[in-house]
């Protein structure tokens, strides 16, 4: 794993989201609680809705286009067939760390 610092948790509003551009496409960072962030694909499997624009509630996000709901801890759609990729995140002293290897960056080694 290669942990990469992508920003501070306070750069994301509580129950809001921001995106990170990666070689695998846009990944959404969802701040579900004061000290909790989840990383998941930004693209809805239904019709490609940008999930980071959805409403974040509990540990879920609702797609802004047609209201599919995804569990950010598993990536599974709630009550629908479909899932989104989720990625490991670490929080260290407020900094958000993503695993570059999992996001398709070639590791430095």
């Amino acid at each position, binding site marked *: 794993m290669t942990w990469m610092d*992508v920003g501070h948790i306070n750069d994301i509003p509580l129950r809001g989201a921001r995106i990170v551009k990666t070689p695998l496409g846009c990944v959404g960072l969802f701040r579900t609680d004061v000290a909790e962030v989840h990383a998941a694909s930004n693209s809805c499997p239904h019709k490609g809705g940008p999930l980071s624009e959805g409403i974040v509630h509990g*540990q879920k996000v609702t797609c802004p286009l047609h209201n599919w709901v995804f569990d950010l801890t598993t990536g599974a759609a709630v009550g629908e067939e479909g899932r989104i990729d989720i990625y490991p995140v670490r929080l260290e002293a407020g900094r958000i760390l993503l695993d570059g290897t999992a996001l398709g960056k070639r590791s430095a080694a």
Partner: protein
Amino acid sequence: MQQKLIVIGAGMASGRVLEHLTEDAHDAYDITLFNAEPRGNYNRIMLSPVLSGEKTYEEIVTHDDAWYDEAAVTCRFGERVAAIDTAAKTVTAENGDVLAYDKLLFGTGSTPFMIPLPGHDLDGVIAYRDLEDTQAMMALGAGNKVVVIGGGLLGLEAAAGMAARGVEVTVVHIMGHLMERQLDEAAGYLLRKSLEAKGITILCGANSKEILGEDGKVRALMLDDGTELPCDLLVMAVGIRPNVALAQEAGLAVGRGIHVDDRMLTSVEDVLAVGECVEHDGAVFGLVAPLYDQARVAAQTLLGKEAAFVQKSLSTKLKVTGCDLFSAGDFAEGEGREDIVFRDPSRGVYKRLVIENDRLVGAVMYGDTGDGNWFFGLIKDATDITEMRETLIFGPAYQGGSTADPLSAVAALPPEAEICGCNGICKSTITDAIAAGATDLGAVRATTKASASCGTCTGLVEQILQVTLGDDFQMPAVQTVCGCTELSHEDVRRLIKSQALKSQAAVWQELGWRTPNGCHVCRPAVNYYLLADWPVEYQDDPQSRFVNERKHANIQKDGTFSVVPRMWGGITNPDELRAIADAADKYNVPTVKVTGGQRIDLLGVRGEDLPYIWSDLNKAGLVSGHAYSKGLRTVKTCVGTDHCRFGTQDSTGLGIKLEKILWGSWTPHKLKLGVSGCPRNCAEATCKDIGIVCVDSGFQIGIGGAAGMDVKETQLLGQVETEEEAIAVVIAVTQAYREGGKYLDRIYKWLAKVGLDWVQAQVMEDLENRKALVARFELSQSIYRKDPWAEQAKEAERFAPIADLTLEAAE
């Protein structure tokens, strides 16, 4: 031969080490105990009860002279260890004495962190750590003012202790809710409520800027918004830092704290450390439970026995009478977890359990913490809870027991709570009527008038009947807002008003929400109700809005946005058109379309470009058209008397005036107006939410039109003579709709519920009421009549990706 042990610091951790040592092997060591404080070991955590007057200092002393005598400890209190020579194995006391040791134990604790604000070194700025600090606070009483910076455990205990002495206390906390490290929002809300009930003022989300002084003594705290909070004493309780200076100088390995291994040995031979000054496996400590474990291990190590310190989950309580909270484990982080929430609004109880892989990993509770230790045990032992999952939240005594009463929110209402806003009927009037024999809705209506007017409180009246009569009353099924609550929209609206609920956390708790923070269905509705009812006190929450309202643009199917600037009353000019054309060029806008609402839509703008295109349009005087909002959209006009040979009044002018008054206001659903200059009705005013048709003798005002999925013609509210009156009526009816409408009901749906007669009575007949509605609308507009584009353009970085990992060189 007896070995020499020197202990630096007579704290809670080293005190325990001494107890274990002297109990297990009374004369293994010849012990010398240094303490910088001029006293021996006392129970530091009990300083709070001393402060509040519930205990005296004498009662919290853990080791008195007799004890040290008995244990043959040489005490050097009020003396600091100044230096250590680990090669020669000696310590130097402040007075120059040099003492040799065989074993050395650090127990230097930590020092309070003082934010280096300008003025932090003034007289009267203190921390909360020792007896001296406590005494400084105890010297105050009624007539004194204190500011406490920090809404964590220590700050709140200090605040409550002084409040108990009659001091006027204000707590300034930088985060959104109190004790955010231990509590979630709901518990933080309840805690705040209890503390406020003790007369403490609490400011959350408040940033301190400067401490102001006079003659070298503190006078006030200034916040970054310029507010000054006068105070005689300022207590900073914002955190602690392990006290490592001495260890560092002596050459011990130090990170955040003094590095120790599992046996509490430091990097230097024969030197141990325990307590808040240590760092073990990356962690530092701030509560006594783990320090006691460390003390036991250190004593064993000193006695040459095997023992290892293991970090465990921690639990927190707050030692403030009447604030019953408990928090344990990890409820803020982790993957694949599930929440169980229980709320009993009538008792002010909130409990939340966090479960992961069939194990309890975290618990937060407020109000009823009796089962706290049982839950804590389940967390520590990682007990499999599959079997008791359903009833877990009710604790050990209630396995298989009762569930929350869905009506408890109504049961909890005080007798004077207003239930029927139209007729000013409070709860006790209704319960009295029930007691006097009105046992169904019709009878209550007939005797009290409650729910006899607009009818939005019908659900509440029924619930009061149910609460009062029990099974004798058959409740009709209600349409709830969503799965998070048992209540209907109407009930939630009424309860927000009658219970004066002013935050989302308050709504979730007091109305017994089943989820920690709602869902995409209820949050936008609750956010709207709160801002409509408490425009000044409540702060709009963008995260509870659908993307269009959060981004102030309409999202398109490909994730781009549309930008629609306002064209007041449909009037524009060459400069505005040029600015729109320039923006379309500059931001490569693929489609420029004239809308059905008399303005121009720039479709296909990239999200990241929004703040920039807005700021360009702003420069030409163009502001947001709110084409995305549940709020005022357009006011369509026709050319009226200015140009048209049939025009009877200045319809364009009136339309522009109305749009300038109403823009920016939020409504239950979108609000569209039309003003036509004559009954030919070229502005299609009779199919708008509010439509005005000008006639020779004045203005005909109709409401409840629509031309979407339902096509509706407006109903005539009335005719007025002057433009001024027409404007007042439009504002009043808008405000009545804002105050009573169900979220996502357009005016025509609201009208079908309340009836045209009722609206006429409110805004056409009762002129005092019309005035009051206008005044309330104006109050709200003092906050909301502004261009969101201009505000958002200042935070352009929020619209960009937080990071771009495609750009960074990989190797």
